[in-house]
């Protein structure tokens, strides 16, 4: 049997773009984790609510993308600010487990809100990217995948620069290391926390818009939150590079698994493979592929 290279290329591009979106959402997780060591379990719901909000702006209100998308960004900023200000800030200095439980509660709250406001089961965003297909050899690739990959790379680049060079980014990393010392430098940690939540929500919203533009909006998007967790765990909880590498690994494993193994094994295999990979990696490298090792001076 000849290997079908065209099909392989299609799987690869699809897997890469979906994986990049996972990585992007994973960054939203890492942002909060890096600044405050809180695992944000509401991530999937934030992705979903931003997608629905985008739907309202673009499809229902009929705004053009250059007006609608900035409004979505502002909505996400506001969402992040509200969550941090009213749900998490009152719990500062409480055990980290309570904070994580609160994010779980926020997730369910958002889910309820979503079914209340958008009772539809699925919807599609208007086209954001050109529809023409690209032919590479025998492969037919939809252009939007390429756009998605490009936008994800841009966001990664912007965030990486932000964390390396911007003083707020550096302050966020510093807060992750030593909150007390950050306060001793006169930096308001509360502002660091709310910035990290606002950024995280925007990143998650970008991820939501991208993934619903290549697929559709449905309750299944909440699961991308779960996928993002697996990316984060695979890549290392606080590592950007880790997320960028692990995202495509998960995405590719999913599409290759779905494409090649379904007929030999069973239909749900595509959802299992990423987790099999994670378990294997965690056994070998418990910090994840690129996780920060704890620096211990003895």
């Amino acid at each position, binding site marked *: 049997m000849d290997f079908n290279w065209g099909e392989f290329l299609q799987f690869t591009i699809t897997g890469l773009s979906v994986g990049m979106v996972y990585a992007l959402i994973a960054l939203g997780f890492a942002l909060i984790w890096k600044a405050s060591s809180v695992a944000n379990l509401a991530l999937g719901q934030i992705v979903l609510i931003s997608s629905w909000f985008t739907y309202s702006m673009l499809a229902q209100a009929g705004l053009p993308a250059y007006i609608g998308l900035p409004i979505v960004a502002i909505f996400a900023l506001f969402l992040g600010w509200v969550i941090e200000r009213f749900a998490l800030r009152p719990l500062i*200095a409480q055990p980290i487990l309570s904070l994580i439980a609160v994010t779980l509660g926020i997730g369910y709250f958002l889910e309820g809100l979503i079914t209340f406001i958008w009772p539809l089961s699925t919807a599609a965003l208007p086209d954001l990217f050109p529809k023409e297909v690209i032919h590479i050899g025998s492969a037919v690739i939809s252009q939007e995948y390429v756009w998605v990959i490009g936008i994800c790379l841009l966001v990664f680049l912007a965030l990486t620069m932000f964390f390396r060079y911007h*003083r707020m980014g*550096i*302050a966020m*990393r*510093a807060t*992750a*290391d*030593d909150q*007390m*010392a*950050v*306060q*001793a*430098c*006169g*930096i*308001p940690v509360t502002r660091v926390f709310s910035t990290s939540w606002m950024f995280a929500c925007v990143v998650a919203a970008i991820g939501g818009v991208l993934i619903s533009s290549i697929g559709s909006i449905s309750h299944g998007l909440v699961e991308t939150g779960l996928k993002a967790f697996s990316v984060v765990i695979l890549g290392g909880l606080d590592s950007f590079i880790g997320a960028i590498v692990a995202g495509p690994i998960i995405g590719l494993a999913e599409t290759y698994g779905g494409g090649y193994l379904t007929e030999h094994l069973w239909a749900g295999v595509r959802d299992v493979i990423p987790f099999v990979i994670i378990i294997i990696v965690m056994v070998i490298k418990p910090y994840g592929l690129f996780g*920060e090792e704890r*620096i211990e*001076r003895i």
Partner: protein
Amino acid sequence: MLKLNNIEVTYLNVIRVLHGVSLTVEDGAIIALLGANGAGKSTTLKAISGLLHVEEGEVTDGSIEWNGVRIEKKNAEQIGKLGIIQALEGRHVFEHLTSEENLMVGAHNRKDRHAVKPDLEMVYDYFPRLKDLRRNTAGYLSGGEQQMLVIGRAMMARPKLMMLDEPSLGLAPLLVEEIYDIIKRFNSEQKTSVLLVEQNVRIALNIAHNGYVMENGRVVLDGSADFLKNNEDVKEFYMGLSTLGTKKSYREVKHYKRRKRWL
């Protein structure tokens, strides 16, 4: 000028750790705050810098005045903006950041961004070793280098009052001297007041203008550095010297332990 008027500090509303501490830091002076463990030195610093609120402590009586304005209710951010910066005890570097990033965190709140770069050079001038290590991860620096980094970070805020909590902790004597020389130079060149908490009484009094001795949450003795250096009690209880100025041999101790005069 910083003035503490008879402050009391209570943690968690029940544990009183300071019972009326008064002290004054004149502009441009180096003040040493001396005493044994648990005397309340660090708490005093945290009361000034506002970090007390983070630890559920509170100034329950008395006042802290900075240039005539009461600051005991302000938080660390507001106090930092007034130009009071504390370097914590025990080398709190940001482990995963590079040395230079650590220094930049110190300059976070500065409004004069264009002056930050020259100040970075200033810090490298005081601590040439940090310049060589600028790209190294701070967590892997040696103890002395980390201490330099913490002091350098405080310098980057361009404070009017720099509070150092035991900069000699766990360092080799030669390094301690080096760091103290730099603190002294910084004070005289930049006119920054320094409030120094120290257990190493001898070295602290060598650079300080005035000193306060604390015990059990109270100031028991204060005066100029020379006065304290020559005080019999300080010599005996904090420098381990007997009245003759020679090293005391505990092998020959037969007498009853002399009572401190301030009790």
